[in-house]
C-alpha cells in the first residue's frame, strides 16, 4: 500500500493537503475548533478583515434558497488591530497556515491593511477580496473591472512580502480577463469563485427579504458556475488556484481539481456538516489510494491537460 502525497503549494504557501476553509464561513478558527482539529487542514482562510472595524449590514442578513443560501453580512469584522491582538494568538496555537482575507473601500485601504499584516508571525498569506464596492468609483466592485482589480493587487504587493492571492468574483462578463489582469499585476495565486449576486422577495411583505436587497448566493447551487470558472481561468493563466463554490464532498473537490484547481475551499457546507473539510481530506486520500495516484498534484487540470490523448 503506497502512501499518498496530498501536499500542494499555493504561491509559496505550503499546505499538507489541498483542503482549506472559505473566508466568511469559518470565522477566525476558534468558532469551529470544537468540531475540527485545525491541524489537519491544508490552510485556514479567515473572515475578511478591514482597516477599521465594520458593523456590517442590518438584518435580515441571510436567507436559505434551494440548495443554497444568500448572505449580505456586509463584512462585519473587528478591524485589523483587534484581529492581530485577539484573533491571531488563538490561531498561532495551531500548526496550520493562516491566510488572511482582506478588504477595503479604496485602494489605499487595501494597501494599509496589507502593510499592517506584513511580517505577522503565523500569517502565511493574504487573500484579497475584490468583491467590495469601490466607494471612490461609485460603488462598483473592484473585481468587476480588470483595471481596478489590478490596481488593488499591485498596491497590496507593494506593501507586503507575503504571498498574495486574488479572490475573483463570478459576476463579470469575462473572468479570464480579470484573472489575466491580476496575474500581470503580480498575484501569486487566485481563488475563485466568490458568491453570485442574487436576491429573494418576501411575497407576504411584498419586499426584498434581505435588508441589503441583494446578497451573495453560495452552496451546492453554484457549483456548476464555479467549476466552469476554474476550467476557464486555469487555462487562461498559469497561477495556482484555490477553487470553491458549493463543495460538499470529496467528489466535488475532485471536480475542481480536475478542472484545474490546485487546492479547494469549503464554505457553506461547513454550516451543514462542520466536519466537511476532514471528510474531504479522507475522501481524497482514499480516492488516490484506490486509483493508484501517488501524488494528488498529478490530477490538477487533468480534465483538460491531456485532452489530445485518447
Amino acid at each position, binding site marked *: 500500500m503506497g502512501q499518498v502525497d496530498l501536499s500542494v503549494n499555493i504561491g509559496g504557501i505550503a499546505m499538507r493537503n489541498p483542503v482549506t476553509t472559505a473566508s466568511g*464561513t*469559518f470565522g477566525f478558527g476558534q468558532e469551529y475548533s*470544537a468540531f475540527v482539529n485545525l491541524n489537519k487542514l491544508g490552510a485556514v482562510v479567515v473572515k475578511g478583515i478591514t482597516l477599521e472595524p465594520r458593523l456590517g449590514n442590518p438584518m435580515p442578513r*441571510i436567507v436559505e434558497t434551494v440548495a443554497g443560501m444568500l448572505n449580505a453580512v456586509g463584512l462585519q469584522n473587528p478591524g485589523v488591530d483587534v484581529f492581530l491582538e485577539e484573533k491571531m494568538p488563538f490561531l498561532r496555537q495551531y500548526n496550520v497556515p493562516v491566510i488572511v482575507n482582506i478588504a477595503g473601500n479604496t485602494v489605499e485601504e487595501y494597501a494599509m491593511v496589507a502593510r499592517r499584516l506584513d511580517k505577522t508571525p503565523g500569517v502565511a498569506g493574504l487573500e484579497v477580496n475584490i468583491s467590495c464596492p469601490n466607494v471612490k468609483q461609485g460603488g462598483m466592485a473592484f473585481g468587476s473591472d480588470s483595471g481596478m482589480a489590478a490596481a488593488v493587487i499591485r498596491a497590496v504587493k507593494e506593501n507586503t512580502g507575503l504571498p498574495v492571492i486574488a479572490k475573483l468574483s463570478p459576476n463579470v462578463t469575462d473572468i479570464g480577463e480579470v484573472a489575466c489582469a491580476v496575474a500581470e499585476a503580480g498575484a501569486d495565486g487566485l481563488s475563485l469563485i466568490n458568491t453570485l449576486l442574487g436576491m429573494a422577495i418576501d411575497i407576504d411583505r411584498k419586499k426584498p427579504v434581505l435588508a441589503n436587497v441583494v446578497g451573495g448566493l453560495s452552496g451546492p447551487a453554484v457549483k456548476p458556475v464555479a467549476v466552469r470558472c476554474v476550467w476557464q481561468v486555469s487555462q487562461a493563466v498559469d497561477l495556482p488556484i484555490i477553487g470553491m463554490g458549493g463543495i460538499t464532498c470529496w467528489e466535488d473537490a475532485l471536480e475542481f481539481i480536475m478542472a484545474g484547481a490546485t487546492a479547494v475551499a469549503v464554505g457553506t457546507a461547513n454550516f*451543514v456538516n462542520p466536519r466537511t473539510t476532514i471528510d474531504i481530506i479522507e475522501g481524497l486520500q482514499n480516492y488516490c489510494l484506490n486509483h493508484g495516484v501517488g501524488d494528488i498534484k498529478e490530477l490538477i487540470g487533468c480534465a483538460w491537460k491531456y485532452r489530445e490523448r485518447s
Partner: protein
Amino acid sequence: MPTMEVGHVLHHKRVGPGIYYLQIKAVSIAREAEPGQFVHVRCTQGTDPLLRRPFSLHEIDSDRGIISLLYQVRGKGTKWLTGHQANDPVDLMGPLGRGFRIVDGISKAILVGGGIGMAPLLPLAQAFRSKGVEVLAFLGAASRGGLRGGLVRLEAYETSTTFLGLATDDGSMGYHGVVTDLLPTHLEKGGTAVYACGPDGMMRAVAQLAAKYNVPCQVSLDKYMACGAGACMGCVCKRKDSRGEITYARVCTEGPVFDAREVYF
C-alpha cells in the same frame, strides 16, 4: 463543549395545531446542556432544504441522556421533521449558545413565555425548583389552540412551577389579554428576576416592565440561523455593550440569552 451527535427518536407527538413534542436520546448533548441553550438540527437528508434549524432545549435529562424539543411547523425543514418516528436518527449539533444565568439570592423567579417561546422556560423552571426557588410562570398565546402557538404541555409546566398564569389574546383560556398584563403585581413585590422568551414585542414589553420595577431581566432571542456556531455572522441582534457602544452580537454565540438592558428589540 458542543459536539455533533446523532441521537434517535424516543417519542414524537403532536401536542397542538402545528406544534410537536420530540423526545430524543442524545447522551453527550444531554450531559452538557444547560437551560437556555439550543441544538442545531438537520432537517433534510439532501441539499433542499439545506441549512440546519435551531431549536431550544425543552427538556434536559443528563442522568438518562435524554433531551426534548417543542417545535412549531413553519416551513420545509420543520415539516420534514414531523415525519420522524421512534428510533429514527436525528442529526444534532449542540449544546450551543449561552443559556439562562441563574440569579442568586432570589426567593422567586418569574418566567414569561409567548407562543412557542415557552419551550426553553421548562428546563429553567425545573432548575430553579431544584434549588428551592419558587417559580411563577406566565404563558401567553394568541389562542388556546391557535396557529401561532397555542397553550400546550400545560401539565408539564404545572408540575414544574409554583404558580402558572395563562393569557390568551382571544380569551379562549385564562386571562383575556396580553401576558404582560399579569406581571406588575408580582414585579412590584421585588426579590425576583425575570426570564422571558417569545415574540420581540412581548420581550420588549417585559424588558420595559422589569426596568420600571428595577428587576433583573434576561431575554432569549430567536433568529434565523445558518451556521449556529458563530462563524457566519448571519444571526446578529443590535446590542449595546458595557461601554454603551452599539454592536451586532451573534444570537447563536453571545446569546441566545441576553441581559434585557443590552438588547435593541
